[in-house]
């Protein structure tokens, strides 16, 4: 195979031209992506905008609401929304806007930390179990079955009563809970991806298992993982709120949306409905935005969807080769 260098001169010139366009392309990739998001998935773009606002609010909470979430002012108890207090005040006279903004920060920290933890757990268990298969898969799956037999709430209550309340504990428990349940979804995706001929091709060319997992399996299960990530993100925010609502989550005075809804909102629902409406609305909008963005992300990240009419062409092509089988 020594005479492979046929036409290498023309190749190297093409090479140079190619590299130039590549660097140009890379610069534009992000803007191109944003453009496609707005054009092809406007609802996703709207969701993305909500996410950006949410993250921005969380990161700059101390700038937006410098007085902090726990500035008690007995004179301003249960004030209705006004120019001074946009969202009104609670029973301790704390500004609800400031609390909501700091609540966003808390939600974001908990959501990202717990979701990231859960996805790592899901991916590791799911990919290992699905790809290795056999007895290993069998054992792991029976463990997962056992774990999932316990209602989530019982595990949570046990964990919180053992570990005590606190942000770190909530993250750990939610991460573990969602992570193990989510491993099923990743495993399912891996099982179907590993049947593809290209995985077989990689094995037959002598690629190591690690390489196959990282280069072939992982990128091809990214779509479900991303969807899992975004739905989990929303679910974790909800779960954390639920826990705090039950008093098992992040202890007061930290401004968890769920806690606000439960402690203040429920108690003063009739005198000061904004105490329930504002954190409830914040929750709803955040969850909606994350879900919309997640769906759009999944569609746009698939290279088969790139370029005009990708989805349709893919469908027609799928039909076409079948006629030759």
């Amino acid at each position: 195979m020594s005479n492979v260098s046929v036409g290498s001169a023309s190749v190297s010139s093409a090479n140079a031209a190619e590299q130039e366009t590549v660097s140009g392309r890379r610069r534009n990739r992000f803007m191109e992506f944003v453009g496609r998001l707005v054009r092809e998935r406007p609802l996703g773009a709207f969701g993305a905008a909500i996410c950006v606002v949410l993250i921005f609010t969380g990161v700059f909470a101390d700038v937006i609401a410098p007085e902090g979430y726990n500035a008690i002012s007995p004179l301003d108890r249960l004030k209705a929304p006004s120019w001074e207090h946009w969202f009104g005040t609670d029973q301790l006279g704390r500004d609800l806007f400031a609390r909501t903004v700091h609540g966003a920060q808390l939600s974001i920290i908990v959501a990202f930390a717990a979701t990231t933890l859960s996805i790592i757990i899901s991916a590791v268990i799911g990919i290992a179990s699905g790809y290795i298969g056999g007895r290993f898969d069998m054992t792991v799956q029976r463990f997962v079955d056992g774990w999932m037999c316990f209602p989530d709430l019982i595990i949570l209550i046990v964990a919180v009563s053992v570990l005590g309340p606190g942000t770190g504990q909530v993250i750990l428990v939610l991460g573990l809970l969602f992570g193990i349940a989510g491993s099923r979804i990743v495993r399912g995706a891996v099982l179907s991806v590993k049947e593809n001929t290209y995985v077989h091709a990689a094995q037959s060319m002598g690629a190591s298992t690690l390489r196959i997992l990282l280069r072939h399996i992982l990128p091809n299960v990214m779509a479900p993982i991303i969807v899992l990530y975004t739905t989990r993100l929303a679910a974790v925010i909800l779960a954390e709120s639920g826990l705090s609502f039950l008093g098992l989550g992040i202890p007061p005075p930290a401004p968890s949306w769920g806690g606000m809804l439960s402690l203040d909102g429920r108690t003063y629902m009739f005198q000061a409905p904004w105490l329930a409406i504002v954190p409830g609305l914040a929750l709803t909008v955040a969850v909606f935005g994350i879900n919309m963005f997640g769906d759009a992300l999944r569609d746009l990240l698939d290279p088969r969807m790139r370029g005009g009419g990708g989805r349709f062409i893919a469908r027609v092509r799928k039909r076409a080769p079948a006629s030759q089988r």
Partner: protein
Amino acid sequence: MTNTEPLLEVDNLQVHFKLHGGLLGRHQATVRAVDGVSFRVDQGETLGVVGESGCGKSTTGLAVLRMIDPSAGSIRLNGDDITLYKGRQLRRIRRRLQMVYQDPFGALDPRMRVLDIVGEPLLVHKLTSDRHAYRKRVLELLDLVGLNPKMAERYPHEFSGGQRQRIGIARALAAEPELIICDEPVSALDVSIQAQIINLLEDLQSELGLTYLFIAHDLAVVRHICDRIMVMYLGQVVETASRDTLYDQPMHPYTQALLSAIPVPDPRAETAREVDPSLQGEVPSPVNPPSGCPFHPRCRHAHDACRETKPPLRELQSGHAVACHLYDPAASEVNAPWPVARPA
């Protein structure tokens, strides 16, 4: 054929799959997918393996590639017995054996660029020193298989079936393997594209001195590209011959039936063509193969011996071996070899 060591030598290869069933996963049955297959492939030649679905031709290919563990027998590649290789040793041997797949749509990772797909064997086996040499080599390979090197940055879905098959061939060539196993490389392609790929495989062979194990069900395609042909039925070799001998003087009744079943794109020849009426029914299940000769339930020449004993593969002329009792010199009271004829 020279007397030198063959490139690939397979001796009495057997691949049995155990079927498990029931609550406790007890062993229920054994599928004899490949049941005692022996052949050799010499440097620079193309051996065709043909047969219908379930005949074990693909399993044979996978066993040679060591993707499936053989149950018995040996596989020697250039003198190295690779039958029992494991782990790192096995991964290294795979540089020397590459495969071209049937399905051009599933064989390429949809999330990798062509550059990364074709170059992967180079990275896996650390065959290039730096990124520039890597890139140069991949572009050379694309050029070699007739693709525009400018397409290296694209993803597989942007290509048609024939182009994808070219990408798959470029990938198989990347590590400069000693043997390329082609598993139905053109059967999923459009008619007008099949010829392009067949010609490409032939050109690459003469240019680079490649050796192919060519697995296919289409006897017309096989005739075009192969030097020698091995016909399989239910996990066994029923006939092996050089190309011309097999097509001009097929001896095994199954080979004859197979040849007579192929439609020819010519209405006049077609109206004259007689479909062997004896060939009714379908290939039996390899879980429960017939006794004796595996072909006897569909064979119009079957007699008692066929039902009882399995005919061995006997070399009747140099390079032409048949496993059929009709040609058994001991059992001469049976019909003389049945007339060898085929409408041209």
